[in-house]
């Protein structure tokens, strides 16, 4: 289970850090890796898989914020272990640097080397806990200003819309001190749900799934114990065949298909009162991941029509309706639809008075794109497009276009109805009252309507 080398490459293939732990892999592995990934042969537009073998050397990589985190080994190791490790290394580095990107990496590479030496020794993983690493690592991070950063993780979306959230929190290093010299006592609990829905051409739901995470980031000093209470009517486990058991009660309870927990979580009273207790380690980590296929109300209804309108013309109408309460606002919505291959031009007609909307036809991949800054709950928006074709077409035009896919983010809203009822911090002093942020967000993972 040992790895031979670890390195991070930029998008252009430059070495950002490079560490050889066992000197078993011939030099030049970074070039070999980069060439292979850049020119993955089998299909022109196919991505290289995360694991491949070149001349007996196994290359593993994960892509984080456009950087390649790579490990090599000659041993037949557990693939999950190495990929999990790479992802974890990225997380640890982010905990330290506050933000993860090429710039912060280059400014802090000595610190990164220091971390890497403690994370892996002679190819064997020692620890990936930011908490544990804190006592071995001495370099101070050089924190770069988060203002000009791209959002890189689900939590980062909180920095955009909702004003009540302290935007810088999630990009704060767990070790660096505030410029003011004191640390704010605070803890973030984010309930992030990614939803996948496929609508059939007649509009009914073919598949739906919620993949949720309760993510925690603690800046509390002295590691107090924390209790999180979830819905009391939470049920876990419905095997493929036992659905009917729950049918009757599906009106009220939240039923998760399955879930898993971070190793720090203790489940002593989970069965009786649905509380999780843990001493949160430093850094960001998922307290619990869950999966749900119970029916839920999709936040958007999509209606698409494509019709021929003359010899070389067609018309597309896309209607989206927000099916959530009017005090909730979805943001950064994009709608995409592949148009027939022989489309040469598209002209758009937005609804009168439309603000914050943009529409575009991407000639190269024949893609219709419609973006909306925000959608208020209950609202309906329509886009009309007139297409011009370069050649005549006989046949079923709906087979040539679609499906329509959507991406969006809905802060302070979650479809599963899973809730954190309370967040208790056990600490003696009565004056101790740290900031607690419990935030919800729903994002589209794969939101597709067939036409």
């Amino acid at each position, binding site marked *: *289970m*040992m790895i031979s080398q670890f390195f991070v490459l930029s998008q252009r293939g430059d*070495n950002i850090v*490079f560490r*050889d732990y066992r*000197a078993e892999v011939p*030099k*030049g*592995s970074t*070039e070999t890796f980069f060439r292979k990934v850049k020119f993955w042969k089998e299909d022109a*537009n196919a*991505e290289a*898989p*995360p*694991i491949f*073998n070149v001349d*007996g050397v196994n290359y593993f990589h*994960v*892509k984080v914020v456009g950087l390649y985190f790579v490990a090599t080994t*000659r*041993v*037949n190791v*557990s*693939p*999950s*272990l190495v*990929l*999990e490790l790479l*992802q974890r290394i990225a997380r640890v580095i982010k905990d330290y640097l506050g933000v993860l990107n090429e710039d912060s990496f280059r400014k802090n590479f*000595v610190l990164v*080397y*220091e971390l890497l030496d403690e994370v892996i*020794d002679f190819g064997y*993983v020692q*620890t*990936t806990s930011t908490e544990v690493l804190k006592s071995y690592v*001495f370099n101070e991070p050089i924190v770069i200003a988060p203002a000009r950063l791209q959002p890189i993780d689900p939590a980062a979306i909180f920095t955009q819309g909702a004003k009540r959230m302290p935007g810088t929190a999630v990009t704060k290093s767990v070790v660096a001190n505030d410029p003011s010299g004191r640390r704010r006592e605070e803890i973030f609990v984010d309930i992030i749900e990614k939803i*996948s829905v*496929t609508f059939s051409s007649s509009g009914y739901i*073919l*598949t739906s*799934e919620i993949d949720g995470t309760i993510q925690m980031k603690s800046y509390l000093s002295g590691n107090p114990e924390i209790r999180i209470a979830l819905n009391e009517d939470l049920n876990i*486990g419905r*095997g*493929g065949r036992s659905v009917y058991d729950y049918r009757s009660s599906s009106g009220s309870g939240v039923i998760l*298909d399955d*879930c*898993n*927990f971070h*190793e720090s979580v203790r489940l002593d009273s989970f069965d009786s009162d649905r509380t999780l207790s843990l001493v949160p380690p430093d850094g960001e980590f*998922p307290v619990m*991941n869950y*999966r749900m296929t119970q029916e839920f109300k999709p936040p958007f209804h999509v209606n698409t029509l494509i019709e021929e309108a003359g010899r070389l013309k067609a018309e597309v109408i896309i209607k989206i309706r927000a099916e959530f309460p009017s005090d909730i606002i979805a943001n950064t919505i994009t709608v995409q639809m592949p148009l027939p291959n022989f489309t040469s031009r598209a002209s758009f007609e937005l609804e009168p008075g439309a603000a914050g909307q943009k529409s575009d036809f991407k000639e190269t*991949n024949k893609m219709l794109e419609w973006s909306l800054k925000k959608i208020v709950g209950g609202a309906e928006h329509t886009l009309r497009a007139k297409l011009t074709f370069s050649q005549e077409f006989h*046949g079923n035009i709906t087979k040539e276009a679609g*499906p329509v*896919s959507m991406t969006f983010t809905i802060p302070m809203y979650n479809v599963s109805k899973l809730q954190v009822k309370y967040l208790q911090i056990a600490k003696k002093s009565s004056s101790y009252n740290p900031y607690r942020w419990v935030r919800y967000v729903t994002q589209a993972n*794969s939101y*597709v309507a*067939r036409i």
Partner: protein
Amino acid sequence: MAPPAASQRYPSPSQPSGKSEVTDLKSQLRQLAGSRAPGVDDSKRDLFKKVISYMTIGIDVSSVFGEMVMCSATSDIVLKKMCYLYVGNYAKGNPDLSLLTINFLQRDCKDQDPMIRGLALRSLCSLRVPNLVEYLVGPLGSGLKDNNSYVRTIAVTGVLKLYHISASTCIDADFPATLKSLMLHDSDAQVVANCLSALQEIWSLEASHSEEACREKESLLSKPVIYYFLNRIKEFNEWAQCLILELAVKYVPSDSNDIFDIMNLLEDRLQHANGAVVLATVKVFLQLTLSMTDVHQQVYERIKSPLLTLVSSGSPEQSYAILSHLHLLVVRAPFIFASDYKHFYCQYNEPSYVKKLKLEMLTAIANESNTYEIVTELCEYAANVDIAIARESIRAVGKIALQQYDVNAIVDRLLQFLAMEKDYVTAETLVLVKDLLRKYPQWSHDCISVVGGISSKNIQEPKAKSALIWMLGEYAQDMSDAPYVLENLIENWEEEHSAEVRLHLLTAAMKCFFKRPPETQRALGIALAAGMADFHQDVHDRALFYYRVLQYDVHVAERVVSPPKQAVSVFADTQSSEIKDRIFDEFNSLSVIYQKPSYMFTDKEHRGPFEFSDEIGNIPITPEASSDIVPQQFEANDKDLLLSTDEKDDNRGLSTTGSAYTAPSYDNSNISSQMQELAISGPATPATTQQSSFDFDDIFGLGLSTAPAPALTPSPPLLKLNPRAALDPGAFQQKWRQLPISLTQDCSVNPQGIAALTVPQSLIKHMQSHSIHCIASGGQSPNFKFFFFAQKESEPSSNYLTECVINSSSAKAQIKVKADEQSTSQAFATVFETALSEFGMP
């Protein structure tokens, strides 16, 4: 440890060579080396950072080695760490300079601060300079006894590093024994975990020449050691837990209580958020229950949900690793996942490597109950913008059709694909229709009427064009314009760039000629002339051969080129079950990702802790063992016959061009050898296909041993069993209750079989390779009881249920057969008995 050598020695032109910068650094470092001025550490930090940044981008800064060492006299730990990093990087290339560092590293190993002791010891062991090993033993010895656990953790790994530099020094200092005692007594979990990984590595390497190491390695798998680890598994961090679980996989439990104890201890590991921990646990569960069929099934049911959660909770890369394992399980036990098919639907934004896996899984789990939904979903993908995935989806539909579920509806769908008029869709579909016709000639009427409507001008891809041409030749009688379409194509011979297509044209023209001579005569003449003038050797040879055999006797030619067809029963592009089992044994390793056993992609020393076949009686499949050359050869032969035609030609091209080039003239013997060659590899030669497929069935159906097989099989027609038969235990029980016993028979088991029966699982595997599947087994020596089921290849609804009781002391077996179709139960019993009689044979 250094960045790649190329860029280190020869910096690329775009980068500064760094020469002047390095000289600059050198003098600055020199100035600071002796200084004790306040703030000097800060200036040193800046300089050290520069040095290390040059090192990272590939500039050679080894020339400042001396200065760096001089500057290392500091109490600043950040500086020290940078210095250690630098030294570690360049020591190997500069052994003389390394000597300089020994002094200060040894001094630091005795520092008051445990952090410095640890760091110095780690650097010391990382120098990798063989002639310095003598300096390691002392500090390592005291490091292992250090009262600080951080130092001990580093010392333990240090021992392993020492072993790799000089094994004898490590063994002579008796370090392994020290590690063993630390492993069993240290209070720190990470020290214990490092001892375990170090000892596993050392003893595995020593085991080849030391019996003692072998014993020690075995002792790690003893019950007390295993339970020592498992009982305190939660004290370890997640990575060390994986290590322990990998160890537990190799443990051979004493009885079923032992098995359940371990499973209960590990049950909650399946809820871990780390996929590596979950997969390692799954592996333990699967391996422990291999011999307990019903529990094994429960394990599948139990692990399904956690694995699906992991697929959707991680990054795409992590999901890929988990999905690959699910893929393996799905292919192994499709019926368990049959109701979960929706989880394997593709999402539009998934990377194509994930989509490909999902398509294969959907293909595998398609059965009577879900085929309609799955095929409907796949048809949606066929219109996908991602053309590669659209193609894969169409192929998946075809594969499902070849699995015999709902062929009728699927043929309709395929024909609808042709109506979509997209080039790549048409191309893929044509290839599929061709394969379908080879398996189900009864569909020719429907297919041909649609295929006939396709204009050959719209088809450019060689594979698709070949498929169309093959159909034109094969069904010339049913397609009214076949001779004219062929003639058209032949007239454009010069513009046809693919040799594969030209080969097909020749054969199709021949076949068409036999069926409709007057209309085709002219086209065939042109084709033969063009073929014999072709620059491509294979095309030339085939044209010449056709010409001569026609000249010799037209009827002989017809018998060779266009004999009556026989439907292809099995497309043998699937992996052998031995290979699949091998991959299953290597669960939670790269073998699963690459879908190959480890011997195919790693050299022996790197197969790692996952290869445990030496310890447990698995079926050995070393490539050199003669026993498995047989099936491999067979696979190859079979491919020639039954794989899609283009691959055949590829093979043929490779294997035959050599001989063709050495033959200067075409005398008789040469032609006859060509004829043979052609007959074996040509797409249009079912005469040999027929014969060879009998061969194939002989071997496949009746096993690998050649001698006893004919004796044991009398004359009755061979019963073909469905290798992918599926029956759930409930249905089995119901049937077993309903059906009468149609046959009871006694047979004997050969002594090798009885010996192999010590692992009952091996019989199950063996029977499975004969398409007879075990549904339940039990018993203790000398009495074993197995329930098997099998299905008729041609009629999935025709099941054979068998109870088989084996007495290992008398080497006798009694079988009771129940069958849906009683008339064939004797035939089945024969197949069963033959298969059983070969059990244990090499």
